[in-house]
């Protein structure tokens, strides 16, 4: 994936006041929500509203995904038919439990892209893992489609499916988080963490976002704009890490020009994965430098 997405802000799909402000909340990505945030009576209104905004709003640099209703609902196909022709960056597909769930979405999206005359593969899939069955199939799901860009953990539904409660320390989700990240990375995809639901508990959010970053999640979902700077802070690389990444990249360039494959920095051997990690860290740190210059809100 090209863009670094530390935050994915859920936006209720039937709330024009929220949708129209998507470019200014400061999130790296938004997920326009047609699923849980919209009552059954308002599915049609939300679908039309989201479609209209996809058509007309300049989302600026914000990555735009749409969480559609699940494949097992009567709204799934209608959502895809309305949204895909507008070419959002991705669709979040809820409750993926098998490769068939992704392949079914893939087939419909491909046909709709063809009809709309947009290049095949434009609209990516973010598969939501939010059931025990889905968790067990996470790697299969992650490798089921080239269009699949990321796995996202849906913590609330997963806890309900497991019959357990959310706790502040989040130990109950440790296995699921680790499993989702490992499955996604094994398939060379990204993983996104679930939401932190207590809007008033900033410290809890920060700790959980830090844990998500440490475990390897590319970013975390947010349910309120106030959560965005907290998550960004949790993902902020330490200055010492950034300085070391710069030294690694400088040494890598020197080694390449001298035809050397392996070299050391600060007494530690550096190879391709370390260089890749350093490159990612520098790209991540640029987001904060841009923010300081006022180019981006974070």
């Amino acid at each position, binding site marked *: 994936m090209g863009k670094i997405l530390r935050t994915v802000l859920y936006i209720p799909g039937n709330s024009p006041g929220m949708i*129209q402000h998507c470019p200014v909340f400061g999130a790296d990505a938004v997920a326009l929500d047609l699923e849980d945030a919209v009552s059954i009576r308002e599915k049609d209104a939300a679908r039309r509203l989201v479609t209209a905004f996809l058509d007309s709003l300049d989302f600026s640099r914000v990555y735009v995904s749409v969480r559609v209703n699940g494949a097992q609902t009567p709204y799934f196909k209608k959502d895809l038919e309305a949204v895909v022709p507008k070419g959002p960056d991705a669709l979040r597909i809820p409750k993926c439990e098998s490769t068939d769930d992704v392949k079914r979405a893939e087939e419909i999206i491909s046909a709709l892209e063809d009809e709309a005359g947009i290049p095949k593969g434009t609209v990516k899939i973010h598969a939501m893992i939010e059931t025990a069955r889905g968790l067990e199939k996470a790697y299969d799901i992650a490798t089921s489609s080239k269009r699949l860009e990321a796995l996202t953990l849906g913590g609330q539904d997963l806890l309900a499916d497991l019959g357990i409660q959310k706790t502040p320390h989040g130990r109950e989700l440790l296995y699921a988080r680790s499993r989702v990240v490992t499955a996604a990375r094994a398939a060379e995809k990204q993983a996104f963490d679930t939401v932190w639901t207590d809007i008033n508990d900033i410290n809890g959010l920060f700790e959980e976002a830090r844990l998500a970053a440490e475990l390897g999640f590319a970013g975390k979902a947010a349910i309120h704009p106030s959560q965005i700077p907290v998550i960004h802070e949790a993902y902020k690389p330490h200055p010492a890490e950034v300085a070391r990444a710069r030294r690694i990249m400088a040494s890598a360039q020197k080694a390449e020009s001298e035809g050397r494959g392996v070299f050391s920095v600060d007494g530690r051997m550096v190879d391709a994965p370390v260089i890749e990690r350093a490159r990612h860290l520098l790209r991540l740190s640029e987001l904060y430098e841009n923010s300081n210059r006022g180019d981006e809100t974070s």
Partner: protein
Amino acid sequence: MSKNTPFKSRTAQCGTLESSDCLVTISESETSHIDYRGANAGIFRKRTEAIVKELLDESDLTSVAVSIQDNGALEVTIRARIETAIERFLQGR
């Protein structure tokens, strides 16, 4: 209609009264008319009435009354709300 049967006019609604939204109500009526209200109604009346007429014409709807309470909705929102209200009206919802 018998004396004892209450007249039930077909009505459909879409939208909310929240800020940046509008509430659109479409009802059966002997004569077509548009009732557009809101803080900016004076500024946007012509534009909004033109949108309503355009969308009613597209759906071949003639004898209806359209009421819009506009609480600062963008044009894209007004269009989407009217379109959904028309769709609901035609579906009898």
